[in-house]
């Protein structure tokens, strides 16, 4: 038996802070969405945060600091330490298609938790990109005048609202799959606390 570190401490800490931050941002964001829905549906009040628009905005604009600062630490660590390169690369569209197909047929091997398959790599990479788009579109909505160049990239203020919504939908979707996968392969769960996993060698 060999114990190896698969989730470095920085990744574990930023992961759990991010769970809290994203929960605050998404549930308060749903309450804000309800004040002026982009689509013909409302989010049920019971799963929103803040009670009313002003309360939700307070949560959203407090939570954004936790979310953004924590995300910056994670990104800086991931890039500087080579964590992203080691865990998420290389990645090829063909490998992603192959592994997603295998996963859907329930045939994806999961013996070695220290190596991500192509389906995982693409999902985690997409999640990181969606989170970055979330911050960028959020800044464009918050400051469409001061950061007008940013809003202009997304079709001005109204365009940025849609980008913000779809980035949220992408994050929510990936998180749902992520949680479902953890339930299907429960031994991955404790590793996000201990960072370690025992490999038969």
């Amino acid at each position, binding site marked *: 038996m060999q114990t190896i570190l698969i989730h470095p401490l920085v990744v574990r800490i930023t992961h759990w802070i991010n769970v809290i931050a994203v929960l605050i941002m998404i549930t308060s964001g749903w309450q*804000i*969405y309800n*004040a*002026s829905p*982009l689509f013909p549906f409302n989010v049920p009040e*019971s799963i929103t*945060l*803040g*009670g009313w*628009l*002003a*309360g939700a*905005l*307070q*949560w959203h*604009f*407090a939570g954004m*600091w936790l979310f953004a600062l924590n995300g910056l630490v994670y990104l800086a660590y991931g890039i500087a330490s080579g964590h992203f390169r080691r865990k998420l690369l290389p990645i090829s569209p063909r490998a992603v298609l192959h592994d997603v197909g295998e996963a859907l047929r329930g045939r994806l091997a999961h013996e070695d938790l220290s190596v991500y398959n192509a389906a995982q790599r693409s999902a985690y990479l997409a999640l990181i990109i969606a989170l970055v788009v979330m911050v960028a579109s959020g800044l464009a909505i918050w*400051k*469409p*005048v*001061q950061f*007008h160049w940013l809003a202009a990239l997304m079709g*001005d*203020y*109204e365009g940025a*609202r849609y980008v913000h919504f779809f980035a949220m939908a992408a994050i929510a979707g990936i998180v749902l799959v992520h949680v479902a996968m953890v339930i299907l392969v429960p031994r991955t769960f404790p590793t996000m606390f201990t960072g370690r996993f025992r490999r038969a060698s």
Partner: protein
Amino acid sequence: MNRKFDIHRTPALANLERRLFLKRGLSLGALAMLSGCDISDQESVQRILLNMSRWNDGVQQWLFDPNRLAPEFPESRITKPFPFNAYYGEDEVREVDGASYKLELAGMIRERKPWTLTQLYALPQVSQVTRHICVEGWSAIGKWNGVRFSDFLARIGADTTAKYVGFQCADDYYGSIDMATALHPQTILALGYADETLPPKYGYPMKLRVPTKLGFKNPKHIAAIFVTNEYPGGYWEDKGYNWFSGS
């Protein structure tokens, strides 16, 4: 509201608060998870959120570039009809009598004599086609005509080193903005909408048009303007909305 509360705080009360704060802090997570009760109602959480909102006022003040202009649009992009919005319904719009109207001035201003509408109409006028963004999320493009606010402040001898400009309105609305925004070239005292006299539903006889702030920072039916260093708050701000609310 907070300041008033502080005055009445005795040491015993402060002590009690501290104990409650600890207790609540401990039970916060459990409560929120188990009972589904709104975590926002906790007093300690409220305090943190309000402090963060004040911190965000500072950040926004720092981000605000007094020379950066809000985007302007061709008239073909104007939203028709431009939406009505207020803290009351459209059937309750206040009718202000233009003939007897007098704009009152107060606070750190040298020339405090009231202004009639005729005098205001006689001032040099500008116009803008800009996007009005509501705190609710929706936005609409409109055209406003009026007097550049910085020109008006100079004319009345306002102390532009003061922190705030406050507004009292004929519809019992009130609000305030920072001096930097008051002096921004696109901040205008709007006397007209789409080249016509400002209709009652858009704030007759005069509203503040600030394209660098959210819609609720654009008070309508302005009856009095004052310059001050004491935080004046605002109708929605006192209910929990962020004060600076800059775009």
